[in-house]
């Protein structure tokens, strides 16, 4: 380990170091999106902001939910609720790989002792209509991050291209801290008077959600909500751009996109309940993708998406 880097002591210290590192590299450090999402990519700071021509640099933690991965807190590595650390920079800087490796050093990975590899992994999100090329980054054979150059999002070609980094925080932190079971991982400094482990905070919630996700979530309600979110998303986007009250041009992309995120999470819940057959699966994914595409179409019609008043027809 380089002399100037101390080993981190806790999960939260690793997060704080990443925040500090990326803030130092010029990223706006954002907060998590306040909705249930399956991955950090769903945060509008990534999906929507990767569209259009406006430069962008953001980093944030995103709590992510994958109902099917719930194991009642018993599996050492699998959780239905976990954290991702997400960085999105547009246009992708030429030294993004070096920036990324710097972040690993910042959280205590000694490059002189470990084996870091970039292994081909093409990323695709069928629900977002998005794909990119890049790698999974291996540290001593363990996948610690996903590194992607976005080529298309919501059916739109990305110009310029964004570079996206996604860290699976629990797995990475367990490796750095030398912990074998996620629930044993120190969340705050283990030397503090009230030391809390990951399990102290999340063991009970993992049990509760696993039971609910797998066995008790009311599927008829979920199905209805899915249909409603889908319809609502379309209605919001269909509203005329001119707001009759203020007279301003207001395209309501983010409210519509919230409904798209909702539909996506509802689909994940239905999937965990095992009520979606193999054939239906594709149809549901297609429905969410259509919403994501409509939102992307609308976003590029806004200022943040690069729209200019004079370019409007």
């Amino acid at each position, binding site marked *: 380990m380089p002399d100037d880097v101390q080993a981190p002591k806790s999960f939260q210290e690793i997060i704080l170091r990443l925040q500090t590192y990326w803030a130092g590299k010029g990223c706006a450090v954002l907060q998590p999106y306040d909705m249930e999402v399956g991955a950090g990519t769903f945060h509008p700071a990534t999906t929507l902001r990767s569209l259009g021509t406006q430069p962008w640099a953001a980093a944030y933690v995103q709590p992510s939910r994958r109902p099917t991965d719930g194991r009642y807190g018993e599996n050492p590595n699998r959780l239905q609720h976990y954290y991702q650390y997400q960085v999105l920079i547009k246009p992708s800087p030429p030294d993004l790989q070096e920036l990324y490796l710097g972040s690993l050093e910042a959280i205590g990975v000694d490059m002189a002792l470990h*084996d870091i590899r970039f292994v081909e992994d093409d990323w695709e999100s069928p629900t977002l209509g998005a794909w990119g*090329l890049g790698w999974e980054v291996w540290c001593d054979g363990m996948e610690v991050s996903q590194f992607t150059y976005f080529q298309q999002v919501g059916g739109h070609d990305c110009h310029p291209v964004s570079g996206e980094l996604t860290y699976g925080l629990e797995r990475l932190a367990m490796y750095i801290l030398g912990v074998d079971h996620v629930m044993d991982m120190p969340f705050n400094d283990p030397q503090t008077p009230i030391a809390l482990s990951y399990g102290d905070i999340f063991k009970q919630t993992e049990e509760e959600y696993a039971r609910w996700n797998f066995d008790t979530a009311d599927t008829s309600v979920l199905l209805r909500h899915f249909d409603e979110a889908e319809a609502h998303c379309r209605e919001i986007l269909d509203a005329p751009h001119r707001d009759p009250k203020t007279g301003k041009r207001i395209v309501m992309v983010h409210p519509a996109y919230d409904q798209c995120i909702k539909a996506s999470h509802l689909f994940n819940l239905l999937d965990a309940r095992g009520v979606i057959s193999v054939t239906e699966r594709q149809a549901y994914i297609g429905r969410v993708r259509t919403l994501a595409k409509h939102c992307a179409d609308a976003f590029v019609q806004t200022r943040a998406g690069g729209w200019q008043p004079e370019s409007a027809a």
Partner: protein
Amino acid sequence: MPDLLIELFSEEIPARMQTRAAEDLRKLVTEGLVEAGLTYASAAAFSTPRRLTLTVEGLLAQSPTTVEERKGPRADAPEKAIEGFLRGAGLTRAELEERDTPKGRVLFARITKTGRPASQIVAEVLERVIRNFPWPKSMRWGEGALRWVRPLQSILCLLSDEAGAEVVPLTMEGISAGDTTAGHRFMAPDRFTVTGFDDYAAKLKRAFVVLEAAERADMIWHDATNQAFATGLEVVEDKGLLAEVAGLVEWPVVLMGRIGDDFLDLPPEVLQTSMKEHQKFFSVRNPKTGRIERFITVANRETADNGATILAGNEKVLAARLADAKFFWDNDLRMISAVGLEGMAKSLTQVTFHNKLGTQAERIARIEALAREIAPIVGAKPDLAAEAARIAKADLTSEMVYEFPELQGLMGRYYAEAAGHDDGVPQACEEHYAPLGPSDDVPTAPVSVAVALADKIDTLTGFWAIDEKPTGSKDPFALRRAALGVIRIVFNSSARLTLFSLFLEPVRRNLYEQAKHYKFAVLIKDENNKAIWVSPWTEQSDGKRDEITGEAPRVIWPYTELSTKFDRGEYAYAAGAFFNQKDGKEVETLPPSSKIVSDLLAFFHDRLKTYLRDQGIRHEVIDACIAMPGNDDLTLLVKRARALSDVLATEDGENLIQGFKRANNILRQAQEADGVEYSYGADVKFAETDAERALFAALDAAEAEIQPAMKAEDFTTAMAAMATLRAPIDAFFEAVQVNADNPTIRRNRLNLLSRITQICLSVADLTKIDG
């Protein structure tokens, strides 16, 4: 003569693309150079995860100057014509030369193309190659428009000779070609200058980069086998993995690690698959027990602790992976001991096989029925074949196969053994998918054969019933492979299958499945050709027969009852049309099942032709045999084809075809001219010549031999007897004029020709053979 060195340095290139990319770079650049007039002595290309490198030796320093002479219009041609010629040649009127020719004074142009320096040409060629590089998948990055496999970071492009090295001037998307490169990403990241290929390769090695992929693979294999050998173990060979791993590292360092004791009892295939697919580890085996006991991983660097940290990390990751695998294995075994494999297969009722062909469970029911029917033909007990068919796909619902789809079948065998199945049933679970490729082994155990055939025949008849056949290069359901599988299994076993009758029932079942999907009725005709409608969309079975009235169909029978009610094979045949449930309107007309089966059989015959062509049997020979009765018995068909092929290879056989054709042509022409069919009544008493009489005798003798031989399927004897006709037929045509003046004689001779053709055609349809 200068040498050229090019290095395209980028972020990590996917391992599977590197070798091809290096080869493409060599080919495209050298072709471009040669096209521009720059020939060279030799060229070689290399790849590592971060670079494609090309070295070209003995390149011309500049392209040769060329002179082209072009003939133009006459000197007195209209002004416009001369202007056009000048434009094309890029010259002025004064630069043209006038010469006397037989056509008068004509203008000639001498166009000189001055040679250009190599650096100019290399820059142009390289830029074009980079912009149009045939990557399987490429991307853009940053704000640029350039596409490369991953971001291109630098270009090294150097022409060097005794006088020194010169950078080729080239700038693309902000990248200027230079004379520097970088070493290993972590061990020697600084950039350094090179003067030529030898200097480049030597400096790279000092900077911890092995340029040649083959050298890296050799290093890995050598170190891996040595380390395994030192502990009395051996590395499980895997060439694909070796090539891939060699593409993941620039400086390979081989490390051997331990597998936790808890996991050593997992099936070796599970260990191997998990280690290879997830971690790209080699398996290390104990040669005495066959157990996988260690793994080999290949790191990309040396470390101060000799890889201890790296190895510990890899062992930890593997333990987590194998904990998952063990978790799946234990869960699956627990489920099997609770509900058995048939219980495990229950959830296949929820899994759609194809939306027109029902669920996996319905498919399994069809395969079971078929396997039961095939079993006695291939020497298997029907109950065992049915049992195997019921559980063969249960492992698709197992957690292990969900995680490792490539273990399907194999896990089926392990789980069937664990569930106490025996008598070839576990083996059938594994082998019923076989053969997958043309070089794959075909199953030979009777139960395996029955289920493997049933599985493939259900697939084929199903997709034929819903008209989803392969077209051109599209064969998404691998139906060609399935048909070839059936062919190979049949040839490999002594069983005789008549495919037509074997296909008929599954086609009907699959039509029924499709009707269920559409909620339409299927037309079934009874023995009196009376139409009956069967609506399969709901399975309440108190329905009665109902004659078609043009109204909504009302008879509702599940298929299983249907086949007993309509004593299969004798009458009921499904299809004809699907009718809409509500208004009885015809929505889709389908060919009758017999037509679908004939069509499928023709597909088999096509596959068979391809298969036999590789064994040296010509298409037309197979066609001649397909035209004979019993062509749905592939064993019979091939036996006949081989015999025919053999006899055609003899001189007698080849000439017999000529004789047969001649006889057939004369006969056909006479029949057309006379409007009469000459088929019967040739009598030796009207024979006028010895040759004629000899032919009569030869035909009698041949027929006496051919008929019993054909009955015994002894085609070799029958064909040989047929070939003996060659000499008498030749002699007959030599000596006799068929179209004699005497009408009685003529008729007799034509009838004789008819006998020749009939005897020959009873063996094979020789009209299909090109003579």
